[in-house]
């Protein structure tokens, strides 16, 4: 990017809050993201960064700028659950990659926030695909805990974090077994011990040391435990260091959601059983390739799922029953399911969430398969992941009071030929330039007779 453009981007970032626009888009095909089917001839009104109204027969407030949306589709921005956006530049370039920390002394205490880089090209590329919000996780690497993930927005500014420490991630199943010493039994023992230590750490004043009386306010709803800023703390724990123990206190208290990564049906049941032992756990299952086999149990437990939608291979022994009908069957059984875990940069990149959702619609035409209606498929990449992240009704949906995150598409957003034309986050229109668009423009022709391509910018 040129110096000029960088300056422009910086100015944009600084002035972003002031640039939220009040506008209406009329006569478009509008999908509100709530699971309902798209409506033709509908209007969306945005004011002060929030959605005011969306649907047919919505009146445009007097004096408001109206944009003709004829032939366009308007949806809420896509919410990409379980990504690594902002944590890496080139995945294979270790120096640029903060996704995992194999040799870290910490696990649960890890917090993705200080590593997040809103200027990563992958953030821009995902945004340009219509993704406006995401959850970001760190991969469990040194222990079964991945640490504390965040909810972010993908706006082209310097503020990425919407909610820090939004969830904790633990991996059980085969991955957890490997990290825990070699077996699922060890992973469960470690996990239970960690939760018990955290419960103890959270309630036992004698081991809390001389911590400051008042919690440290950080502006979010999970304050930093005072013992983390107290150097006099001493504790005779056996397995968890005090940072990891403190990080798990809100998990065991149920104030911070615990994302549990498991694939196998029996592993899912083992996780659901933990609720009897730790009743305040608020859990989300991530992965669940065999979720359809225990869909009724998941539904009865009220535990939502974030699933990779197109897994249909026995990629491991814990995914023998993987099928593209997994999501459709779980939804039919009453499970709340978001599409997610497309964390990569190859076929499973977040930018392809719309394609993956479209594939679930395709399954409705395949005999014997279970897919989703268009409305449900889009909800699985908008309102449902937002709800799982704690933002039900406030993100991923075009409803009064929801964030003004919307995308104007040149066609059906789940279709391969379609792409965003305009993207708004909190009512602020987003730039469309990134490294790849600049390369596209530079190499649209190969003419370098007069000057090398390096001058072509």
């Amino acid at each position, binding site marked *: 990017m040129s110096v000029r453009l960088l300056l422009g981007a910086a100015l944009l970032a600084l002035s972003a809050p002031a640039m939220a626009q009040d506008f209406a888009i009329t006569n478009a095909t509008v999908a509100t993201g709530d699971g309902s089917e798209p409506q033709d001839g509908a209007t969306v009104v945005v004011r002060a960064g929030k959605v005011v109204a969306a649907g047919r027969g919505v009146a445009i407030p007097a004096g408001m700028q109206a944009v003709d949306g004829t032939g366009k589709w308007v949806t809420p921005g896509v919410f990409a659950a379980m990504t690594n956006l902002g944590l890496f530049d080139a995945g*294979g370039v270790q120096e640029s990659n903060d996704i995992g920390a194999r040799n870290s002394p910490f696990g649960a205490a890890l917090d993705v926030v200080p590593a997040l880089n809103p200027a990563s090209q992958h953030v821009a590329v995902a945004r340009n695909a219509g993704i406006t919000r995401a959850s970001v996780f760190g991969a469990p690497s040194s222990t079964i805990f991945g640490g504390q993930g965040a909810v972010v927005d993908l706006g082209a500014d310097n503020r990425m974090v919407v909610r820090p420490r939004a969830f904790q991630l633990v991996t059980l199943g085969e991955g957890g077994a490997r990290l825990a010493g070699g077996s699922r039994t060890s992973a469960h023992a470690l996990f239970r011990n960690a939760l018990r230590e955290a419960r103890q750490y959270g309630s036992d004043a004698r081991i809390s040391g001389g911590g400051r009386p008042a919690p440290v306010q950080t502006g979010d709803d999970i304050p930093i435990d005072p013992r983390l800023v107290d150097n006099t703390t001493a504790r005779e724990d056996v397995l968890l260091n005090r940072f990891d123990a403190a990080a798990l206190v809100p998990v065991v208290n149920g104030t911070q959601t615990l994302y549990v990564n498991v694939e196998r049906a029996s592993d899912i049941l083992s996780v659901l059983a933990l609720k009897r032992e730790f009743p305040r756990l608020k859990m989300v299952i991530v992965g669940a390739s065999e979720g359809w086999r225990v869909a009724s149990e998941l539904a009865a437990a009220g535990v939502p799922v974030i699933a990779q939608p197109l897994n249909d291979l026995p990629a491991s022994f814990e995914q023998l029953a993987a099928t593209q009908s997994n999501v459709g069957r779980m939804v039919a059984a009453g499970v709340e399911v978001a599409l997610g875990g497309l964390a990569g940069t190859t076929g499973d990149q977040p930018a392809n969430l719309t394609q993956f959702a479209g594939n679930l619609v395709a399954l409705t035409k395949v005999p014997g398969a279970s897919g989703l209606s268009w409305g449900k498929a889009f909800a699985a990449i908008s309102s449902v992941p937002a709800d799982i992240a704690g933002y039900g009704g406030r993100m991923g949906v075009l409803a009064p009071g929801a964030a003004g995150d919307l995308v104007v598409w040149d066609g059906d957003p789940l279709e391969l030929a379609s792409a965003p034309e305009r993207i708004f986050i909190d009512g602020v229109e987003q730039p469309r330039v990134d490294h790849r668009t600049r390369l596209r423009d530079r190499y649209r022709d190969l003419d370098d007779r007069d000057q090398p391509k390096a001058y072509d910018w």
Partner: protein
Amino acid sequence: MTTIRTALAAASALALAACAATPGSDTKSASSTPAAVDANPYPSTYRPYPGTPTALVGATVYDGAGGRIENGTVLFADGKVVGIGAADLAIPAGYTRIDGTGKYVTPGVIDIHSHLGDYPTPSVEAHSDGNEATSPTTPEVWAEHSVWPQDPGFTRALANGGVTALQILPGSANLMGGRAVTLKNVPSRTMQGMKFPGAPYSMKMACGENPKRVYGSKGRMPSTRMGNLAVNRQTWLNAKADDGKKRNLATETLKGVLAGDIRIQNHCYRADEMAIVLDMAKEMGYKVAAFHHAVESYKIADLLRENGVCSAVWADWYGFKMESYDGIPENAAFIHNAGACVVIHSDDENGIQRLNQEAAKAQAAGRRSGIQISDADVIRWITLNAATAMGIADVTGSLAPGKMADVVLWNGDPLSVYTRPEKVWVDGALMFDANDPKRRPVSDFELGQPGEGDVK
């Protein structure tokens, strides 16, 4: 697909991702050993399965060679395409008539870059048979000797992707990874039962980061890109100097390349490296059939056109390693627009199920940048162009009389996300039918296990 628990492993695996190589069988390495060397010691035993004379009528037909027929008719019998034409094409007596109204017909999809069988699922260590990563050049290994025909991935590629032929390449850890093999996508008890009759062999080569990282980390040459080239050149020179008195499997493959019997499928991302490889090929006297993973082909599309080299590319993979950082979704369209050959490849057991969708995404990216490429031409990227680069275009890859009846009937526009194969024929035999639960292969591995026979 990357699971969370393997996200880290995947990051390093992706650094390895991307390879190339092709198969062959009836190759004659006449140039080397004078004695009776069997050039085809593991011959194909593939025989077409029985089919019935079939007339597909009423569908939109893409012939794979750039042609499109509305309300077309496709006739096949005895494993071969008999005729293709408009609605007025006469249907001989005894043909089973299938109404394709509202549907689409294409040639079978062909993946030029797959590791199915060599890296089968479940992806456990015991199945890791795709990289003989013990020496930077292993022209002596043959990918066919690793293929596990029970890999469930073959069945998904058939049912969801309409894939009827695919090239299995060794991995890209090595500069010269060994020979590839081309397979018909039919279930079989043996690799030979899938081996594509008469397909030429290819040899897989790899540029760039993978070989230098794999061997550099072992403290061996090559550890740099200049090391890559040096080892390559010396290996070619040694092969040329071999007098052939004593059989040497590595030399036999390399001499097969130099004789023009074995094709080169070259994993190579960066434009500058591809240019160097083209000069190395000229220096040593061979030709590159295709650059695979060629994410920067758009920067040298003119050079690739002039050299008659295909680019086998993804639609949108990028940024997973340094040499993929400049990948752009317009790559395929820019290559095509420059008059060079485009193939959409997968290198992936999931992506192979959606090559049609990947082609559609690449087409759409081109359209948004002002390049219009017809649907019929885009279908060619996953059919005839792949066959051409693999050396099997004379027998498959398009719907023309006398060619193998490798055919897909799609339940809608194959460039739409809402479409899936409804029926897939290989050599005129119906190998998948979405409407018939029994016309769906289930591998030995899946029998008696959760999900057996499920709609996947």
